């Protein structure tokens, strides 16, 4: 209750939740509002918004842009969520290992993490998707591979400060196994920064996915926001609506996720609320 109250105090976060809920509803009802596949030609090509019963116009092949955006919402949310889960699994395991074991292991894991933070991650993502052929799973994999380092760093820092606390020592004295201490005692206490980070990671993953499919690296069978913008790029002089509206969809979703992230951060770290930059 106290959590909800302090979350609701942040106006931006409430707006973010509302926008995000709307995106969810559109994604869930895509098949009801726009039955059939979004690839179907339903009108004359290049119809401006409002004509022939199409709210957001039609594209170069007479497909409904609004239908594409609604169906694309599913892919964006799905890719954002799944790749974040994979990246969290990677980052939490590596960070926990480094922070709890320490010593040489810590050193090695951190050098590995630094390496991934140094290399141009977007170029690596492109390379990975291109080599493993563009499918939704290779896109998720590539996004996860380039998104885990911040998680590992945060988790490591939390573990470093928590592992010498009394409750951990107590658990050790009780004879609990290392694994059960890490998972059962330390991890629950390190959750709040992970939760805050994950909403920002979903936002970033959606941006990355849109960039990949803009470059033509999306799953060729799936309608995505980035693909819509990419196909509107060459005809922007003829049909501005083809690239404007999908971009607005990405912007609103990512902004909402960022706002929710700030609200979570305020609610979970009440001491820092209002001091954030």
């Amino acid at each position: 209750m106290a959590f909800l109250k302090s979350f609701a105090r942040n106006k931006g976060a409430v707006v973010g939740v509302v926008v995000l809920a709307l995106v969810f509803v559109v994604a869930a009802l895509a098949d009801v509002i726009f039955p059939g596949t979004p690839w179907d030609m339903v009108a004359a090509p290049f119809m401006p918004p409002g004509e022939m019963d199409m709210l957001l116009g039609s594209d170069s092949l007479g497909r409904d842009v609004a239908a594409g955006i609604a169906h694309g919402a599913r892919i964006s949310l799905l890719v954002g969520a799944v790749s974040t889960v994979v990246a969290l699994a990677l980052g939490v395991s590596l960070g926990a290992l480094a922070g709890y074991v320490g010593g040489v292991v810590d050193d090695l894991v951190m050098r590995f993490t630094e390496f991934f933070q140094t290399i141009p991650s977007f170029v690596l993502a492109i390379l990975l998707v291109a080599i493993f052929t563009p499918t939704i799973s290779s896109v998720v994999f590539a996004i996860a591979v380039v998104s885990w380092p911040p998680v590992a760093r945060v988790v490591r820092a939390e573990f470093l400060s928590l592992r010498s606390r009394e409750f951990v020592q107590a658990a050790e004295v009780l004879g609990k196994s290392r694994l059960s201490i890490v998972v059962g005692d330390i991890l629950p206490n390190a959750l709040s920064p992970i939760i805050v980070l994950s909403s920002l990671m979903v936002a970033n993953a959606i941006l990355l996915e849109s960039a990949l499919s803009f470059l033509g690296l999306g799953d060729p069978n799936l309608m995505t926001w980035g693909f819509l913008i990419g196909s509107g790029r060459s005809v922007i002089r003829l049909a501005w609506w083809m690239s404007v509206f999908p971009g607005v969809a990405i912007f609103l979703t990512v902004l909402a996720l960022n706002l929710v992230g700030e609200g979570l951060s305020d609610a979970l770290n009440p001491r820092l609320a209002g001091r954030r930059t």
Partner: protein
Amino acid sequence: MDPAKLPGFLAQRLVKAAIVVLAIVVCNFFLIHAAPGDPASVIAGQSGAADERFLQQLRTQFGLDQPLHVQLWIYVKGVLTLDLGFSHRQQMPVSTLIMDRLPATLLLTGAAFAFAITLGITLGTLAARRVGTWADSVITVLALTFYATPLFWVGLMLVLFFSVWLEWLPSFGMMSVGANLAGLALVLDVAKHLLLPALTLGLFYMAVYARLTRATMLEVADQDFVKTARAKGVPEGQVVRRHVLRNALLPVITFAGIQAGQLIGGSILVETVFAWPGIGRLAFEALLARDYPVLMGVFFATSVMVVLFNLLTDLLYAVVDPRVEVA
């Protein structure tokens, strides 16, 4: 830092940079082998046109019939002598292709970076000095907006606004086609073409630097030495410039170094939108043709650029901040 320690510091950073570069080469090598299908056809660029004799020749050249560690050695030796392979598609060595495109990318990322850091620090300073006023709010909202907008979409919207509707600026390329300009006219022409891409790439980082400068300036402004300076009667402008800003800039420099990789990654998208003839555009063309040697060459070249840039910021940091010790 103590000047006597500088060579040691430099050597240590150089070794670190060399290890990163080597790791990237190894990473590339395993990617070739992780790709589905015959490594020889990956090296050939899966052009389809590669005939069996050519593939056989590649297999002997890269020792693909030998054990993995021998293959790795051959590959690393090749890359270290700047042999990045051959683009079967373009009938040119990959290193030549990349060197041809390098200046355009350096111009674009350099301009974007200069724009982002100058305007970002200025806006951040403004916001920090006027915390809570409308100027502060505007800057915070701008930062949030650019955080959430896809880079390539910003580019397209700028094209729509400035090229299609207002017809002020060109929307693609690096110079006017067939104009045969020279001297000052050429410089102006390139600058006109550069404006929109550099703006697109720079806006996001401007927002990042503005937020960071604002945050660190507020932090530094609370510290004792600033209060002391004020108490001594140092004029306000001088306190901000010499005491607060100078100390607040250090984290900004570090952050700029960390983000170099993202800046270069972003240039792939921007160059694609504006048909800017740099490495990013090369990568996009290679992507369409599934020309893997070129893609791997681009990955290698951009990584080296990032490593060099990090080396530069490390050095700058050590010179600016005497407290930095050789770790």
